[in-house]
């Protein structure tokens, strides 16, 4: 049922009953989208092509904004520290994404094995960290890593060494996310029709063979979706390194891109530069997730 647009019809007097309802229903979401996604993005774009100009004088100094073209972008793209922060983010992601998805798949497959005991307890215990905010999780792990309080050998293992710190940050991310992804994959496993296992069981197929040859290929769409969500989470890495910072000086104030943007905006108070960095980062993030989503669609379809 096609609804004619209400053009020319006075507001409040729709000629056809109900024709305005879909517009009314989507209006709040559209307004919020315009106000809190489009407008901030547009404002950041405008800011990013301006520069602060300090006007000094006997009557005091003030700053005015002047148009400066792409100068901020040149400065941002030429900033080695931004690329270093992106590299550090990628290193954490290289551990956290396979760690999260791998553990989630492993636990989901084991939950699905018939004679597993205490499965309900384990499932719940592994899922619960999802309800713990990243900052709180980092506080807990931070004290577990800290040599003075560590119950897991922090006085002999250096969890904040230049190399170890990547594993320490990634571990917190894995701890928080593996359980939710496990449930997503487990739910997909449970949705498979049980008949598909019968032939395999009659052929004497072991549980391991069934898991690898039948279950894993069939839940691939769920696994792929978990990977995409983990990649998106990795791009947003901020809470864990930022919260570990007071506990260790292995983490700089510009450790990952979002921390760098925060630092530009609030520590250096250079808003145009923070805006330009945000724009660059958003474009890259959107590019990455679109390419990932396209790849995933193709693989799932093919």
């Amino acid at each position: 049922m096609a609804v004619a647009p209400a053009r020319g019809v006075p507001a409040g007097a729709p000629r056809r009953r109900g024709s305005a309802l879909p517009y009314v229903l989507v209006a709040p979401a559209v307004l919020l989208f315009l106000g809190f996604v489009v407008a901030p993005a547009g404002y950041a774009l405008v800011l990013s092509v301006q520069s602060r100009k300090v006007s000094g004088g006997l009557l005091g100094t003030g700053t005015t904004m002047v148009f400066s073209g792409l100068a901020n972008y040149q400065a941002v793209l030429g900033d080695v520290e931004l690329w270093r922060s992106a590299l550090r983010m990628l290193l954490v992601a290289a551990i956290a994404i396979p760690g999260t998805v791998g553990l989630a798949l492993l636990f989901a497959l084991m939950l699905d094995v018939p004679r597993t005991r205490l499965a309900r307890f384990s499932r719940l215990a592994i899922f619960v960290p999802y309800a713990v905010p990243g900052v709180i999780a980092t506080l807990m792990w931070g004290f577990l890593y800290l040599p003075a309080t560590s119950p897991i050998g922090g006085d002999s293992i250096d969890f904040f060494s230049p190399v170890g710190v990547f594993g320490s940050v990634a571990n917190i991310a894995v701890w928080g996310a593996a359980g939710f992804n496990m449930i997503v994959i487990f739910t997909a496993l449970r949705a498979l029709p049980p008949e598909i296992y019968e032939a395999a069981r009659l052929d004497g197929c072991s549980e391991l063979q069934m898991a690898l040859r039948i279950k894993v290929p069939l839940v691939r769409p769920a696994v792929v979706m978990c990977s995409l969500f983990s990649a998106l989470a990795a791009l947003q890495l901020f809470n864990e390194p930022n919260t570990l910072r007071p506990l260790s000086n292995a983490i700089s104030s510009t450790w990952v891109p979002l921390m760098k943007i925060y630092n530009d905006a609030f520590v250096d108070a250079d808003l145009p530069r923070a805006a330009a960095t945000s724009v660059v980062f958003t474009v890259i993030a959107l590019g990455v997730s679109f390419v990932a989503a396209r790849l995933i669609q193709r693989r799932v379809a093919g």
Partner: protein
Amino acid sequence: MTAVLARPEAGAPAVARRGGTAWVPTVALLVGAAYCIIPTLWILIASTKTKTELFSTATYLPSLGLAENVVELSQYQSGIFWRWMLNSFLYAAVGGVVASAISAATGYALAKYAFRGRELLFNTILAGVLLPQIVLAIPQYLLLSSVGLTDSYLGVLLPQLFNPYGIYLCRIYAAAAVPDTLLEAGRLDGASEFQLFRTVGLRLMGPGLVTVFLLQFIAIWNNFLLPFVMLTSEEKFPLTVGLYGLLRHGAAEASLYSLVIAGTLLSIIPVVALFLSLQRHWRIDLVTGAIR
């Protein structure tokens, strides 16, 4: 043969008891459970220690200082910790309810009406799912500061009301759960479109909406960067920002660490309890079913 055929779905409790225990998956899962529980367990033990014991006694040895720590935390800056707890619930509950209502309305309209701009809107929302919301936090701060909305409850709530993933899930769920024939029958009976949305649409979408609400509740509860950049007054902080601030002070004054630990413990309890009590209403199959 009959035994095999009579077998109910794999994993049903009756089957699980047949034969011995599958040891490898049982043990592996228990190791996983221990990995997830140990940090919480350690926080529980550490929060029973007094300031001096925290850095001096064996780490897994509990003590008797829990009440003392909780009292001291409750007195810290005249009880600001409980204010943070209340704020977190306020942000997450109000934000979760309103965001779910908006998602439900939008998802229903997208699934049940053909209207001009529908495809454009839906594709824009799909792109919104892929855009990490948090990269917008600083541009949102810049914009809201130009209209004077920073450091207010609204500054934290408003940006979290638009939830593209929630809209996406609601559209999928409305398409599957609300039959067109029922809507047509209602129209023949003379019900208005809005009545149909309220009495048929929303009612049938109920189970899916619980999931959308819980996902958004947790997302807001766990959010840090947005309130961190938006707020400067401590009495408006959610727990995440408040405890982070306490930790920063603790770096200079180690005696605050035992307060941070007690606060961490207290902050976990209510949301985990809420979560466990609602876990039967979760429809996580919605999360996976949606993508297929």
